[in-house]
């Protein structure tokens, strides 16, 4: 364990209101399930020094309906997503994604809000949220705003969040059409994705990819091609020009591109 713990400082809070007050006056890094943060702590690559521990804010764990909207609290863990009957009936592909994140231990601690705030391009829940145009609810001491997930990221691990804000919930409007999710990891469990796809089959399909760009991306050109009734081969061709996967430690650009187009076809076939 390579980080000097004594140099770190953390405050914990009894309520969301207190948390937001602290962030207004004394901005610091929120910490919840810590499943990514503590990897950096272990390896000595942790940059922040001052933290706000929000793990105990149970008010942010609820999964409920608000009218026809599904509202998922930011601190809902992957386990709670897997077990939620509301997620199972309204957004089953989110449960699919959660089941394939880490193993049980990670699922018990990782949160949806954490996955979003962390902003890894390989975040497994992100294509699911992008494909259904989920909305991220951000709250500060004075205000609340809503940002579509598709506008949430400005670059590699860069978000529109302000230092005084917390993600409090994710809202999902009813999803018309069959949902489809596929994660290609480095192995069958406990795997970082090499490529991850989520799709909704509708007259205007919505398709999102992870691990093929610096952020999660929708593929509007490909969606349009399919909506216009072009063939799947033509759409695959459009896709190959729309995404820009890279070589990295886990995989290659060539493989990712090949698999992306294969999975597009598979999505189309499975949901047709």
């Amino acid at each position, binding site marked *: 364990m390579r980080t000097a713990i004594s140099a770190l400082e953390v405050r*914990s809070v009894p309520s969301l209101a207190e948390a937001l007050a602290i962030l207004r006056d004394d901005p610091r890094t929120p910490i919840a399930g810590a499943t990514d943060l*503590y990897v950096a702590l272990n390896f000595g690559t942790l940059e922040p020094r001052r933290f706000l521990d929000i793990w105990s804010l149970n008010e942010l764990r609820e999964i409920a309906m608000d009218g026809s909207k599904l509202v998922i609290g930011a601190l809902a863990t992957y386990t709670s997503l897997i077990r939620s009957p509301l997620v199972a009936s309204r957004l089953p592909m989110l449960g699919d994604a959660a089941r394939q994140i880490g193993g049980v231990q990670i699922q018990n601690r990782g949160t949806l809000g954490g996955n979003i705030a962390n902003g890894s391009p390989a975040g497994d829940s992100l294509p699911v949220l992008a494909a259904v145009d989920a909305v991220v609810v951000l709250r500060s001491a004075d205000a609340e705003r809503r940002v579509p997930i598709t506008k949430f990221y400005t670059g590699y691990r860069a978000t529109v969040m302000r230092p005084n804000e917390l993600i409090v919930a994710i809202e999902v409007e009813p999803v018309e059409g069959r949902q489809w999710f596929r994660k290609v990891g480095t192995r069958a469990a406990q795997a970082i994705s090499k490529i991850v796809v989520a799709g909704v089959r509708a007259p205007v399909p919505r398709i999102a990819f992870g691990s093929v760009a610096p952020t999660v991306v929708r593929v509007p050109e490909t969606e349009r091609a399919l909506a216009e009734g072009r063939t799947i081969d033509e759409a695959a061709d459009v896709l190959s020009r729309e995404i820009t996967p890279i070589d990295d430690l886990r995989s290659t650009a060539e493989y990712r591109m090949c698999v992306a187009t294969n999975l597009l076809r598979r999505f189309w076939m499975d949901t047709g």
Partner: protein
Amino acid sequence: MRFVLNGTSTIVDAHPMARLLDVLRQDCGLTGTKEGCGEGECGACTVLVNGEAVCSCLIPVGQVESADVVTIEGLGDDHPLQHHFMNEVGAQCGICTPGMIMAALSLGPSPTLADVRTALAGNLCRCTGYSAIYRAVMKWRETQNASGPAPASAAR
């Protein structure tokens, strides 16, 4: 901070960002929980917090304030699952065994082989190829069921 450790109320004077793993091993002297990777990949550091299996190398000890923490020591020296692990050779070198046992405790009363694989997918073993671990866990569940309904608490 104060929390319940293996059934006993415990006070520990540690930095709230200290890893729960280190607090258990060093401050509490309970070395049964092991460090294999420091990144939540191997599961050797698995403990139960409020009944849920988690990687203690990824938990700030401040977050277990008032929680119920159970480590391998909490099972004592005579737990049936421990005996099954040794008898079925589910433990070879044994370093993954405490974490493996803690993860297995959350299985339901009648798991299928697929359930067992999924429950243990976050625990790496390099010695056994896992087959003997499945045998140990399934045997445990079978004998539990044969001798009566499984008790509610995780420590049995």
